């Protein structure tokens, strides 16, 4: 690995180009950035490392003028500065290459580079060509100016964006998750390009959630976690440590225990032995075709025995939702087989799978989980509409429904003004209880939970987790999909890690599971 190659820049006597001082940014319901300090210096690749939701995107949103901090301040060249718009950011010399390409696909490379000139002007194509030639030769890249952007590879499009930032005399280049869509070769090329950029005295901020890249490309690494900066490794320290030591230190920062947290992981009791029992859920070589906006799944295999909780860990958007939907029957399967209690179900409909005992608690509680405008009572029986005893000959049996709904509301502690209240008016925690009551009702054998505590407050989170544990204790098989590693560690018997639509490893939830799962999540072998 090209660790530290070429980072000969001396750390002395370098003023920050941009400094963040206790910057805080809130969105409704969450603190996206919490009291963050950061210093960005010329000649340095500053890596911002963190999982999805760690606050990386918000941070660069503020640097590129898309958002403004609620508290704290941003200094540019030592002077407090408001970065009010993207135009303003560009004028300050801050260029950003966003995670999602910011090029117009229907225009050529040249036209995209010319975008942003005064509107009355005729684009100065010759002048552009000369400047582009100068920059590309110094960076060692080649680009065809007359090519349409939609015909370029993603790596080439990225080079166009970097080139655009250079054309605008950027002193600071922000690369947001720039490797996420690149091939391994493209990633190496980008790494080399970054080295040449800092060699020319630019500052580069490189955002990633992949640890390997951080270590390979970074001069300085800042680790973000849940909106907070949990650590920074300065260049001197990076140079003095070996690769393994750095990785160990970062894994500790990213996944380490958080002291006296009420949610703190307590490993589940492993007294129950599942070894003897036959699996309740068996999945073999499950595959789902890729779609335009969702990754596919390939050769997913696992089984869950009665009473067991299998966790699925991974960074959001790696196929978790596709897996849950494929199992529940909401998404077409391209291959493989699924057995529930020795019945093959992969060809059955959603309703038939439910009948057999497979239940799915969606993470989209208000979207696909409930009908917000329907009363709580009806929402308990959404999946039994038309079935006896709640409906007879197509007519709703109000008495039956209300009686059973009242019983379920009591049992699952649903706090609602009345059973007639539209479910959309309840809090997230109470909506989740309605879903739990509905899905865990009679006949359940296998339950899939997709992000069951996402967006819930602490009390409801703990209650939901207890409910899941109780479910397993009743002898059901539980598949728990979550992006919250702490949650998985506190609940599961085994944890499988999903990445790019495939299971990259399964770990028994024993003492060193945290490190192993963490390493799998960031693309290292356990």
């Amino acid at each position: 690995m090209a660790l530290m190659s070429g980072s000969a820049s001396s750390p002395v006597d370098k003023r920050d180009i941009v400094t963040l001082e206790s910057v805080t940014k809130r969105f409704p319901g969450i603190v996206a950035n919490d009291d963050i300090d950061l210093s960005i210096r010329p000649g340095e690749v500053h890596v911002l490392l963190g999982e999805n939701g760690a606050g990386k995107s918000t941070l660069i949103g503020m640097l590129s003028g898309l958002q403004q901090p609620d508290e704290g301040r941003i200094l540019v060249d030592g002077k407090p500065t408001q970065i009010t718009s993207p135009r303003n950011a560009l004028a300050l010399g801050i260029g950003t290459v966003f995670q999602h390409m910011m090029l117009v696909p229907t225009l050529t490379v040249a036209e995209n580079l010319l975008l942003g000139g005064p509107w009355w002007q005729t684009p100065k194509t010759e002048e552009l060509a000369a400047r582009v030639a100068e920059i590309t030769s110094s960076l060692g890249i080649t680009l065809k100016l007359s090519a349409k952007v939609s015909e370029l590879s993603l790596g080439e499009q990225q080079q166009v964006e970097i080139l655009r930032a250079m054309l605008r005399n950027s002193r600071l280049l922000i690369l947001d998750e720039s490797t996420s869509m690149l091939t391994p070769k493209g990633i190496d090329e980008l790494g080399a390009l970054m080295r040449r950029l800092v060699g020319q005295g630019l500052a580069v901020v490189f955002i990633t959630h992949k640890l390997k890249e951080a270590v390979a490309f970074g001069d300085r690494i800042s680790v973000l976690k849940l909106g907070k900066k949990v650590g920074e490794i300065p260049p001197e320290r990076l140079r003095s440590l070996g690769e393994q030591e750095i990785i160990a230190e970062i894994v500790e920062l990213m996944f380490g225990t958080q002291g006296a947290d009420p949610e703190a992981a307590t490993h589940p009791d492993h007294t129950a032995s599942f070894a003897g029992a036959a699996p309740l859920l068996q999945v073999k070589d499950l595959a789902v075709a890729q779609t335009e906006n969702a990754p596919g799944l390939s050769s997913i295999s696992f089984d869950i025995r009665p009473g067991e909780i299998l966790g699925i860990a991974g960074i959001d958007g790696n196929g978790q939702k596709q897996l849950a939907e494929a199992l529940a029957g909401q998404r077409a399967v391209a291959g493989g087989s699924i057995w529930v209690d020795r019945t093959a179900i992969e060809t059955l409909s959603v309703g038939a799978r439910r009948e057999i005992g497979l239940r799915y608690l969606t993470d989209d509680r208000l979207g696909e989980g409930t009908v917000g405008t329907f009363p709580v009572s009806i929402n308990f029986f959404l999946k039994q509409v038309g079935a006896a005893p709640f409906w007879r000959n197509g007519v709703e049996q109000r008495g039956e429904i209300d009686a059973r709904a009242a019983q379920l509301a009591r049992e699952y502690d649903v706090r609602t003004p009345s059973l007639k209240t539209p479910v959309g008016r309840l809090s997230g925690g109470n909506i989740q209880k309605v879903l739990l009551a509905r899905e865990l009702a009679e006949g359940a054998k296998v339950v899939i939970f997709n992000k069951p505590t996402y967006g819930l407050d602490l009390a409801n989170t703990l209650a939901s987790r207890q409910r899941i544990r109780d479910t397993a204790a009743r002898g059901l098989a539980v598949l728990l999909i979550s992006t919250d590693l702490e949650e998985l560690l506190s609940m599961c018997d085994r944890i499988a890690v999903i990445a790019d639509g495939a299971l990259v490893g399964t770990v028994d939830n024993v003492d060193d599971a945290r490190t192993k799962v963490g390493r799998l999540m960031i693309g290292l072998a356990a």
Partner: protein
Amino acid sequence: MSGLFSDVFLSALLFGAITAAIPLLLAGLGEQMSEKAGVLNIGIEGMMLAGAYLGFVGAFYSGSLWLGFLTGIAGGVAVALIMALLCVRIGLNQIVIGIALTLGVEGLTALLHHFQFSRSYPRLPAADATVIPLLSNIPVIGPAFFKHHMIVYLAVALVFVMSYIYRRTQLGLNLQAAGDKPAALDVAGIDVMKTRTIAVLTTGALAGLGGAYLANVGAGLFIPFITNGAGFLGIVLAMLARGRPVWVLVGALVFGVCLSLTTAMQVAGINMPTDIIQMLPFLAVMAMLVLFGRRASLPAALGIPYERGAR
């Protein structure tokens, strides 16, 4: 039937086709600019009607057709201003606002007409034609194409101006980016709102001019609902033209011939119910949509209000 294919008849038919095509051309070019910038401008029918009414009023009271065109443009821009404010600035639904504007202007102009002109139904004198020397002497084609009001030649010239803007200017790039990927334009430091506002106001000006031509030159009077869907035909033309102004011209001429035929066939006394003859242009629309509609390519962000930083 001998009269149907005589030279006089043919040149009258073509003359009428041009007269009918010009409002469609102006509306289509205007709509094309809005759509390029990502605004589906359904209010264009209302903008045309406002232009027709104010254009007529201006020409009637001042006695100058050119002043009438200016007031027509002002009328179209006024309606476009509301559209720009509500749909571009505030980001309301473009379809709903467009329909509301059209209906509103229809009602308002009908009401104003009722108070002002419903007793007298005043007419404007026939517009002065600018006769192009030499070319106008060619049989059939000469009287059909080269004896029109000056504004007709200007409207055709506008096709090439638009082509130049889209292909060769910074404004053209900005407009296309605003429609295809507004976020890219924004991070390039150009105000998306401003770009789209310019587009919508230009649409208003062109639609207003088209309406004024329709009333002042085409009909010589104003009656309620005079545009009779010309703005909507403009939307169809813009969608079929795939961003190329020349195709708007071609489409406008095709519809112009159809519209002219409806008049000509009635005059010629063809034995067919007039209702069916009057359906002709709209059948042509459907035929064109069936033939070419599938190939219509629309900007990716068409109809979507832009909001910075929204994901």
